[in-house]
């Protein structure tokens, strides 16, 4: 017990008190939300938590280790299809399907990582490789009869009168708490990773891979670990996706827009930071819903207008805050770890 408490205490070591307090407040708000929020707001909160989670997962590869993936939809899709197929065909609980999904996604990630890192595919070329594999999967699953190909794969729709956590069938509130658990878990995991020796190796690779190699860091191994962890985590989001939406179409799940959607949060919020993916998810989901609400209220809703406004808002953030929202915000709130930034 004492060791457990020590473990929990070490998690918060070195974190400013104000950051802890705001984190606790944020968590309290999220925990209480289902009692206050209506179903519509709850749906939006679930989306926020989902994107906060996937953002953390993607951030491990790009933000920590500096490897740009534009194909994370691949891991979402693999996780989703694996558990959904096991559930529909064999009645396997998603909790038992989860390790299978993780193994499938981790294997795919390891394969792509091995190809790229062994043969020196880096930077934009690596990004293109990740897109290519997501596209392979999209086209492959379109013709994958076992999961109904392009016609879509459906899970039996839940009966909302009773929650069945074991089979992930139930009310939005249940999904909300599952998503909250995932988001908190991802945050804690990333926090731990960032302060581990591996986390330091990743930062060194991100800053200057050549220099990292001259110091004797096994950069190949470190990058492989980053891809495997990131892919595994992302596949868990896929499991959630499948059981929450109950339908899977290769054209949607593996589509590149899914990959982009998932990386916008951490980019807007601040790449490589722990709070960036959360802030980004809150802002992006809030923004897209908010714009829709406002335009509806004014009775102004020509097709595409919402996307245009959304794009303008993103453009402004990227232009005015190139490091993302969190780093300058953290400095302003006195939560930043490091006030000094190097001159470019």
């Amino acid at each position, binding site marked *: 017990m004492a060791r457990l408490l020590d473990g929990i205490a070490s998690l918060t070591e070195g974190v400013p008190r104000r950051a802890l307090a705001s984190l606790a407040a944020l968590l309290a708000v999220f925990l209480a939300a289902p009692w206050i929020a209506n179903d519509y707001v709850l749906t939006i909160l679930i989306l926020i938590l989902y994107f906060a989670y996937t953002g953390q997962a993607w951030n491990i590869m790009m933000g920590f280790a500096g490897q740009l993936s534009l194909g994370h939809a691949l891991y979402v899709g693999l996780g989703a299809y694996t558990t959904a197929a096991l559930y529909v065909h064999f009645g396997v609980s998603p909790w038992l399907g989860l390790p299978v999904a993780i193994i499938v996604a981790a294997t795919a990630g390891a394969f792509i990582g091995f190809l790229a890192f062994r043969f020196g595919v880096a930077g934009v070329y690596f990004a293109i490789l990740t897109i290519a594999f997501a596209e392979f999967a999209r086209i492959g699953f379109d013709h994958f009869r076992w999961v109904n190909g392009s016609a879509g794969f459906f899970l039996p729709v839940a009966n909302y009168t009773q929650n069945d956590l074991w089979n992930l069938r139930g009310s939005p509130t249940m999904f909300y708490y599952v998503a909250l658990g995932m988001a908190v878990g991802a945050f804690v995991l990333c926090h731990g990773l960032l302060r581990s020796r591996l986390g330091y190796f990743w930062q060194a690779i991100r800053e200057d891979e050549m220099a990292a190699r001259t110091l004797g860091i096994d950069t190949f191994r470190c990058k492989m670990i980053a891809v495997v962890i990131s892919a595994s985590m992302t596949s868990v989001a896929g499991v959630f996706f499948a059981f929450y939406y109950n339908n899977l179409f290769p054209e949607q799940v593996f589509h590149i827009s899914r990959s982009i959607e998932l990386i916008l949060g951490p980019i807007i919020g601040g790449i490589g930071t722990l709070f960036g993916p959360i802030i980004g998810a809150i802002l992006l989901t809030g923004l897209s819903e908010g714009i829709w609400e406002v335009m509806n209220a004014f009775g102004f809703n020509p097709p595409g207008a919402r996307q245009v406004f959304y794009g303008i808002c993103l453009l402004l953030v990227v232009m005015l805050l190139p490091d993302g929202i969190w780093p300058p915000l953290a400095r302003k709130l006195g939560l930043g770890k490091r006030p*000094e930034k190097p001159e470019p």
Partner: protein
Amino acid sequence: MLRVEDLEVFYGDARALDGVSLQVEEGAIVAIVGANGAGKTSLIRTIAGMHAPGRGRIVLRGADIAGMPSHRVCNLGIGQVAEGRQVFPSMTVAENLDMGAMLPRARAHRAKNLDRVLALFPVLAERSAQAAGTLSGGEQQMLAIGRCLMGQPELVMFDEPSLGLAPAVVQAMLQTIRDLNREGLTCVLVEQNVAVSLKLASRAYVLENGRITLSGTGAELLADDRVRRAYLGL
């Protein structure tokens, strides 16, 4: 200590090194001089395990290490200060030094090595909490050397340590290398500053188009007419 035999290295179809052989005795300063593109950096990278040779042997204390991956070569005590002061710009000076001490061979000796590095470069202690990217060029070079020493190397290969530094700083840098050598560190020095590096070196090699064309003691090469014409402009 280190013997390179008949080393051949290709980048794609281009031959960077063509049958290079050289020897580094324990406790020596060995200079490798040559023009841009002669293959100096390729040689260092290949010895460090960052590039696999097409042919040849790299023998460290009797064991062939050619083709061994760089993280294992590093852990055998071969350190490298790469060209262009590759510090991690947004990490602090202290974090940069810590990164150098992550090698298995050096982890247990971190505190001792840190004391040594900070005694050697007191300015790094003053700047310890500052981001490395905010240091001056000379300070960054000190950090790069200090970070390498944190890995407790027995042989360090310096690639153009004086590149882009002010003349006064260059003198201090070379003095540091001489001091480290007197403390027992074996040094391989790749420099465009030929006159100075030959004065420092106990043994020197001239590398031209991937081949060793001349070798001897530093003094011998300094007196050699070809070296004087080609590299010293005399």
